């Protein structure tokens, strides 16, 4: 998940993209889809999950209004890493690869937002990986609960 988007970059994204609506429960994209677009959520919540080999669905995150997804496929060309489902009715702006590429080429603010956001996301992922490497599930749960009651 990227950090909150600066207002001017938000307006640029809206101008460059297409406004789309999804009903609750509708698929937005599926794991493995080849799609390098970036999406900005205008309203509603989007749940990201993937399915284990045994068929168990594992939720990874839920994003909501003002948050953006799709930065990894946009930057790398890799396929979608998770299924995205509209947890509620969702409106979003989808910016295809070419206009998004043009935007970060001409807008230092957009480029900085994307680079800093991806850097922070990478730091969080490394922290998560680090805690998974060092802590059991019950230790991680204990840490979360202890933090919640502070």
């Amino acid at each position: 998940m990227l950090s909150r988007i600066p207002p001017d970059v938000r307006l640029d994204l809206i101008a460059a993209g297409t406004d789309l609506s999804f009903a609750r429960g509708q698929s937005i994209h599926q794991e493995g889809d080849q799609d390098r677009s970036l999406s900005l959520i205008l309203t509603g919540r989007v749940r990201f999950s993937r399915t284990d080999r045994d068929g168990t669905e594992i939720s990874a995150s839920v994003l909501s209004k003002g948050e953006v997804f799709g930065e990894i496929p946009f930057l790398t060309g890799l396929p979608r890493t998770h299924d995205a489902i509209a947890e509620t009715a969702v409106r979003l702006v989808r910016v295809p690869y070419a206009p998004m590429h043009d935007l970060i080429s001409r807008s230092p603010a957009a480029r900085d937002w994307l680079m800093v956001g991806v850097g922070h996301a990478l730091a969080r992922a490394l922290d998560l990986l680090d805690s998974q490497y060092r802590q059991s599930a019950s230790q991680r749960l204990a840490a979360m609960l202890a933090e919640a009651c502070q």
Partner: protein
Amino acid sequence: MRLALRQADIAVRLNLSRKAVNSALKVLADQGLVRTGYGQIWLLNRIELAAYSNPVSGQGLAQ
């Protein structure tokens, strides 16, 4: 202290399956650190809970 937390929400936050969350809660309950009810978790000993969560010291992956 009581927290209104669903296992599904915990699973999302910790990137675990619901089954793994259920097992982890049972471990903590067996240790006397929490008690669980429908959609709720009672924290019985916050200090011991924090102590239990302390990771073993070691080299982290993040630079």
